[in-house]
């Protein structure tokens, strides 16, 4: 039974990944990160992604802090935050988040505060979606590892189903 569970979990993971790729939420850079994970660095992807979450939330707070100020005019500073957000998003393969940053930056370059506010809303939405999905992915992965760990002793007992 546990054997089935491992396969089912792997299928769930693949299905979720396929969906995220199909939606353009993730791109091939995420696959590249997975390739960098091995026995010597078994948690590489989740480590990098967690750093990304931490940095991103800081950046989002900064962006919102800048924009809520009605007298806001420091578009240059906003551009710096956006460049950082764009860079780290592209480094982990967060394609949709990155694309919103590009649009956000365009509004910023036009000193378009209303446009920036709209872009920020969208950015926060996309980021939330990404975070939820990646958490889901990591959860399935964890379950799969646990299930696989329990499975192997059973394989040594040939009479077990």
């Amino acid at each position, binding site marked *: 039974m546990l054997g089935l569970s491992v396969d089912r979990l792997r299928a769930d993971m693949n299905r979720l990944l396929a969906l995220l790729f199909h939606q353009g939420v993730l791109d091939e*850079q995420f696959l590249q990160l997975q390739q*960098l994970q091995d026995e010597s660095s078994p948690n590489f992807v989740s480590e990098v992604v967690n750093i990304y979450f931490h*940095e991103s939330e800081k950046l989002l707070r900064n962006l919102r802090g800048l924009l809520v100020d009605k007298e806001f005019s420091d578009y240059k500073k906003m551009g*710096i935050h956006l460049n*950082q957000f764009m*860079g*780290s998003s*592209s480094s982990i393969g967060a394609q949709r988040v990155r694309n919103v940053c590009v649009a956000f930056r365009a509004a910023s370059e036009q000193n378009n505060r209303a446009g920036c506010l709209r872009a920020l809303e969208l950015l926060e939405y996309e980021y939330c979606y990404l975070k939820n999905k990646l958490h889901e992915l990591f959860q399935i992965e964890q379950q799969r590892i646990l299930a696989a760990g329990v499975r192997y002793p059973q394989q040594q007992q040939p009479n077990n189903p």
Partner: protein
Amino acid sequence: MAINGVFSRFKMLDKNEGVNNLSPFTDSHEVHVLAVDDSLVDRKVIERLLKITSCKVTAVESGRRALQILGFDEEKTSVGFDGFKVDLIITDYFMPGMTGYELLKKIKGSSNFREIPVVIMSSENVLARIDRCLEEGAEDFIVKPVKLSDVRRLKSYMFGENRIHTKDREFNKRKIDVSLSPSSDEVMSNQSSPSISPRSFSSSPTSHSTTFLDSHIRRLKTSNHD
């Protein structure tokens, strides 16, 4: 005889301005890369990419820190400074404080350090920026996100057996067919072969065609000074 041999090697060290161009890629020496990037995410990724290609990595978050760790501001010659030696600097372009471009200029403007190859990374594929960096002496320019293939290729042509990093650069020097250069496995084992000083190594890869279509790297500069 052995003692004489050792002594003269040290003498050779004295004469060279940049310690790194002795290329001691013997068994005991891994390629040591100094990675500079203000983004922690990117530092983690580049560090892993380099480690997986068997490089030793030191990752720092700013140009200032990079210069500090190199011993840049100290009034020592590279001979006297026994500590920190790097074979390659790879830096992000856009950084607060000192940009990668400014770091590049500082490195190339220093007699002690200008032998160290510098590679620039940027998320933007801006031709003017690429040209500017290459003109200032950057070895290469990688568009982010950096991939394993980028790092492998870099390591292969810079530190592999077909290593062609010399002071006398030729036009199109960099365009080498990947299939003709050693794979990363071969590169690792080749590091134990006798070291070849970059100065004495002459390159002639002009017959090879480029296959680096996915890296957006352009090399436009003609022969360098010297």
